[in-house]
C-alpha cells in the first residue's frame, strides 16, 4: 500500500509533465513559420520569396528603413519580379528610385505578366520610372516597333512613360522611319509629342515630315492640328509662325480655329525682338485674317502684356470697335494702380485714351 501511495503521485507528475511539454511543443513549433503574415499567408501557397518579404516587413515594423532598403536591393538583384510585387505594397518607401530603375531593366522582356505587374504599381512616379527603365533598356537591341507595342500598354499612358525615351531617341536619330511607323499605327496625340521632340533636334525638317502624314492614317486630322501647335511653340519665331500657317493651306491665316492658337503658341514664348516681328507679320495680313489672329496675342497672356506693349498691339486692330473691346478686356485682366495714368498717352487713338480714362474713373 505504501509503495502504491508513492507511485501514484510520481506517475501523475510524469504524465502531467509529459502532457504539458507535448502541448507546448505542438503549440510552438509551427509558430515561427507563420508568424508575420498571419492567417492569410498560412492559407495561401507561400511565395518563393516569402522569407525576404517577411524580413523586409519586419525591418519596416522595427523602423529600420535603411535595412529594409538594403534587403529590397538584394531582392531586386535576385528576383526583380518579386521585388515589384512587394514594392506595390509599400508606397512611400523613400530612396528606392535607383533600385526600381535597375530592377526594371532586369525584368524578363515582353510578357503579359510583366505588363500587368508594372501596371499594378500604385504611385504614378514609380510606375513611370519602372516603365521607362524597362523599355529604355531595350532601345537599340529590340526593334522600335516591338518596344513601342510593349511600352504603349503602360497604364495612364498620357505620361508616355513606356515609350518616351524610345521616342526621344528616335526623334533625334531616325525621325523618318519612326514617323512612318506612327502614321501606319495611327492613334491620337502621340504624333504631337513626337513633333515636340523633333523640334528640339531637327526643327528644319518639321514641315517636310508633316507633309508625309498620309490620308487614311487613323487620328491624323485630329493630330495635325496639335502637331502644328507643337511646331509653333517649339520654335517661337515669326518665320515659324508663317511656316505653320502655310501648312494650313492658302486661307490658313483666316482660320479662327487655327490661326489665333498658333499666334498664341509662338507669341507667348517669343523674345521681345521676335514679338515685334510676329506683330509685323500679323499686321501684313488681310484685314479679316489680321483681326482674327490678334486674338491669339491675348489668349492667356493678357497679364503678361505690358502697357507699352498693349499700345503697340492694339494699334494693329483695324477697327475702333475691336480696339475698344481689346482695351476693355486687357484692362480687366490687369491689376493697375488707378492713379497711374501715364501709360494712357501711349494709346494710339483719342477714343481709346478717353475710354481708358472712363474705366479708371469708375474704379
Amino acid at each position, binding site marked *: 500500500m505504501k509503495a502504491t501511495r508513492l507511485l501514484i503521485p510520481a506517475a501523475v507528475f510524469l504524465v502531467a509533465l509529459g502532457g504539458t511539454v507535448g502541448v507546448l511543443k505542438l503549440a510552438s513549433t509551427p509558430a515561427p513559420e507563420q508568424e508575420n503574415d498571419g492567417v492569410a499567408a498560412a492559407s495561401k501557397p507561400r511565395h518563393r520569396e516569402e522569407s525576404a518579404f517577411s524580413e523586409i516587413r*519586419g525591418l*519596416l515594423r*522595427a523602423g529600420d528603413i535603411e535595412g529594409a532598403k538594403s534587403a529590397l536591393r538584394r531582392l531586386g538583384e535576385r528576383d526583380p519580379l518579386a521585388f515589384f510585387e512587394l514594392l506595390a505594397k509599400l508606397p512611400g518607401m523613400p530612396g528606392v528610385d535607383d533600385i526600381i530603375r535597375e530592377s526594371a531593366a532586369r525584368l524578363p522582356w515582353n510578357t503579359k505578366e510583366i505588363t500587368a505587374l508594372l501596371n499594378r504599381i500604385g504611385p504614378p512616379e514609380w510606375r513611370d520610372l519602372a516603365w521607362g527603365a524597362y523599355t529604355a533598356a531595350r532601345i537599340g537591341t529590340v526593334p522600335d516597333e516591338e518596344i513601342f507595342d510593349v511600352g504603349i500598354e503602360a497604364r495612364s499612358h498620357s505620361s508616355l512613360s513606356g515609350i518616351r525615351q524610345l521616342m526621344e531617341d528616335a526623334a533625334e536619330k531616325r525621325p523618318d522611319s519612326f514617323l512612318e511607323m506612327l502614321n501606319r499605327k495611327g492613334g491620337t496625340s502621340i504624333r504631337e509629342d513626337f513633333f515636340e521632340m523633333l523640334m528640339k533636334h531637327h526643327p528644319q525638317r518639321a514641315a517636310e515630315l508633316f507633309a508625309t502624314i498620309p490620308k487614311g492614317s487613323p487620328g491624323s486630322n485630329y493630330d495635325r492640328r496639335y502637331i502644328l501647335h507643337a511646331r509653333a511653340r517649339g520654335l517661337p519665331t515669326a518665320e515659324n509662325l508663317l511656316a505653320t500657317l502655310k501648312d494650313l493651306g492658302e486661307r490658313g491665316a483666316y482660320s479662327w480655329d487655327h490661326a489665333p492658337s498658333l499666334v498664341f503658341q509662338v507669341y507667348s514664348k517669343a523674345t521681345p525682338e521676335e514679338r515685334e516681328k510676329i506683330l509685323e507679320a500679323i499686321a501684313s495680313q488681310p484685314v479679316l485674317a489680321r483681326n482674327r489672329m490678334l486674338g491669339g496675342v491675348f489668349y492667356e497672356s493678357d497679364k503678361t502684356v505690358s502697357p507699352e506693349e498693349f499700345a503697340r498691339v492694339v494699334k494693329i486692330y483695324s477697327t475702333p470697335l475691336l480696339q475698344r473691346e481689346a482695351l476693355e478686356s486687357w484692362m480687366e485682366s490687369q491689376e493697375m494702380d488707378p492713379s497711374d495714368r501715364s501709360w494712357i498717352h501711349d494709346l494710339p487713338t483719342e477714343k481709346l485714351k478717353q475710354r481708358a480714362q472712363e474705366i479708371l474713373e469708375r474704379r
Partner: protein
Amino acid sequence: MAIDARTLLLSWLLPGIAGLGAGVVLMAPKEKAAMPKSSEVSADRSETAKLPDDPTVIQLAALAGRTGEARKKIEALFAENAPDEAIAEWLAPVLIADPAWLESFILTVHEPRRIDLVRATIWKISEISPDAAWELVRSSPFAAMAARTTGSDVEREGLDVLNGCHDSPLAAEVLFDPANGFSTEEATKFFRFGSQNTANNKRLLKEWFAGRWEGEAPECVRAAWLNLRWLEESTLRELEKEMPEALETQAERFESLGKLTATAGMITEDPSAEELGILGPEELAQFAESRTEAGRPLPLETLAELPPELRGQTFDTYFSYLYPYHQDVAQHALDVLDQLGLKRSERQALLEGAVAQEWSFTGDHEKALEIIARMPDREAAEERKGEVLEDLVKFDPQTGLEFIKTMPSGELKERMEKLAAEGMP
C-alpha cells in the same frame, strides 16, 4: 478505495500541478534556444522598440502591419481638429494593412463626418494602391456604403471616388458581388468607359450572359466586348461559347464594330452600306467620326443608303475635320447632298455643319452665305446669316459694308449698317 480530500490533494493534484509547472519551465528556455538567430528575430525584438517620430517611418511600419503609432497619430489629428485630407493621409496606410479595422474605428468618429472622411481616405488609397482601395470596400461594409454615397464633395459623385481604380482586377469582382451591396446601375455607370483589365471585361460579359441587363446592352458591355477583343481575343472566343442565343444579334454588332474599327493601321477602303447596316446608331456615329478624323470620311452616298434612324447622328459632325485638308471631300458632299433623298432635317444638319466650318476656317463670307441660302429651314437660315454678317461687319467693316449695299432693305440691313458705322475708322 475510499479517497479522502487529503489523499486527493497529495496523490493527484499536487503532483499534477508540479508536473505541469515543470513542463512549462522546461519548455520555456527550450523554445528560445530552438529559434534561429536570424535577422527576423532581431527585427522581431526591436519591433516593440519605440519608433522615431518620422512620418515616413511610421507610415511604412503601418503598411508592414505595425499600426499602433499611426493610430496614435490619427488620434492626435482628431484632437487638433485636422481636416479630412490630413487624417486620410494617415488612415490610408493603416487601412491598407488592416482594412477590416475601419468598422470599429468609424464608430469613434463623429457621425456627420464619417462619409466624407472615408471617401477622402478611399481617394487617398486609390492613388497609392487601386487594389487596396477595392480590398477596403470589400472588407468594410461602411467603406462600401461610403463609396456609393455622394458626400459633401459633389464634384466626385458616388463611385467616382474610385475613378483611378478601373483597371484593378478586383473592380468587377467587388462591384458585382451581392455581399457588397452595389446596384447594377452603380456598376454599369462605373464601367461606362470600360476597363483595360481582362478580368473585369470577362466578368462584365459573364454578367451580361447571365441576364443582368435586359434588352439593349449598356455602354459598359459593349466596351467590355471591344476591349477584350482588343486585349485578348482568344479569351473572348472562349467566353463566347457560354453566350445565350438571345444575345447573338447584339454581339454580332459589337463584332462588326470591332472589325471595322480595330483595323489598327492605314484605312484603305470604304465599307459598304450592308457592312455599316449592322451597327447601331451610336456605333455608326462613333465610327463615322473616327473615319473623318483619319481623313477618310464615309462617303455621303453610302450613309444615304442607310435607314434614317441609323444614319441620323452622323450628319451633325460630318464636316468637322474636313477643313483644311479635305476641302475637296467637303465640296463633293455639298455638291451631292441635295440629290441623295435625305430628309429635310438631315440636309439642314449637314448644311449647318458645313457653314460653321466654311466661315470659321476660310472666312469666305460669300461661300458661307451661298451655303446658308440652300438651307431648307428658312428661320434657321436667317439666324445664321445674321451671325455671319455680324462677324464680317465687326472684323472687316469695309467688305461688310460693300455686301450690305447689295441686300434688300429690312431690319437685318439696318442693324448691320449701324454696326458697320461703329466699326469704321
